[in-house]
């Protein structure tokens, strides 16, 4: 545990010495075996996603993949402050899953993380598999399927069901991403598991609220203007209202 003075010291030096890492893991934090295993998991899911996108998507979803990638990349640049002198930003995996489904959403997130790591040195290239898995796939799969289950339970065709599902799923995906990162750091021997879990969870429980708010704003816009573009569009009631009363 850093004491107060070292904390102030680090905070002061932070801007000079360390890049913004976000939840983006830099090269050097993970051991070779952990990097390799996360690479394998990421590549397996991406390969499956490539096949599924081929199989199920239509031409008209292609431009939406571009828009979704652009929005998530841009939003990830905007760190919002959270209490305690820390910041967070959107991960976007759940948003991508809600808009495009888990398969196309996975490809979109992969593109975003490749560009961040290769062009902007944000997140290490050797640990890109872990970053894609933690910040992308946990959202596009875990976040998406949790959202779908909640929405089906709470009211698939109502904004109430939609919004609660989106908020809970996106918050949960950030918390899970921080747990996955903590586990990877601990298995790598970088920091002890208890310390990593408590510290990562402590911040990301708060950062997840930001994720939920941004994901809600984006989905509420699509829900209002083009609900048909959602991967799981709401169904209009087949009998809107009886033409003749009684």
């Amino acid at each position, binding site marked *: 545990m850093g004491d107060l003075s070292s904390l102030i010291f680090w905070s002061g030096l932070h801007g000079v010495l360390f890049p913004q890492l976000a939840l983006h893991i830099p090269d050097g934090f993970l051991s070779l075996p952990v990097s390799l295993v996360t690479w394998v998991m990421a590549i397996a899911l*991406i390969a499956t996603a490539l096949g599924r996108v081929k199989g199920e998507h239509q031409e008209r979803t292609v431009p*939406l993949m571009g828009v979704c990638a652009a929005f998530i990349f841009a939003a990830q640049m905007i760190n919002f402050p959270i209490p305690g002198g*820390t910041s967070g*930003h959107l991960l976007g995996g759940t948003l991508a899953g809600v808009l495009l489904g888990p398969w196309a959403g996975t490809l979109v997130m992969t593109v975003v993380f490749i560009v961040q790591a290769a062009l902007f*040195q944000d997140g290490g*290239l050797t640990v890109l598999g872990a970053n894609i898995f933690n910040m992308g796939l946990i959202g596009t799969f875990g976040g998406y399927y949790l959202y779908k289950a909640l929405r089906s339970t709470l009211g698939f065709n109502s904004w109430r069901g939609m919004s609660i599902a989106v908020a809970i799923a996106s918050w949960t995906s950030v918390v899970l991403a921080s747990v996955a990162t903590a586990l990877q750091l601990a298995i790598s021997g970088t920091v002890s598991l208890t310390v990593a879990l408590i510290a990562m969870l402590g911040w990301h429980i708060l950062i997840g609220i930001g994720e939920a708010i941004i994901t809600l704003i984006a989905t509420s816009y699509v829900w209002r203007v083009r609900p048909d573009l959602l991967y799981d569009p709401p169904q209009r009631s087949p009998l809107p209202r009886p033409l003749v009363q009684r």
Partner: protein
Amino acid sequence: MTNRPNYTRNGTFVILGLSAALVIAVLLSPFASSDPDGLDRVAEDHDFAKQAEEDTVAKQLPFYSVFEEYALRGVPEAVATPLAGLIGTLTVFGMAWGAGKLLVKGSVQDSTDSDLPDRPSN
């Protein structure tokens, strides 16, 4: 409810969505919090921030001579991050569109498997 064909309405949505992304990346990025974020903060508090490698693979790439993190090199500081945001947003837009286009077009029988979306080639 409009009679416009779907592709026009989709075109409008795409333009609006991309514009929103560009506004965020260009106009809002200078206002992003510079506080350390989650992992960053934990790494500092628990003394493993120094384990981050200095000479990373990404710094061997030609892009490193163009961008220093989210800042375009060789331009005034005030516009370095907005321009990096602009270029990055357009790059992911094009790559995700391109990856989708390649996959969906070849959806019938074409199995020229490109296993990953291509690296940017600009």
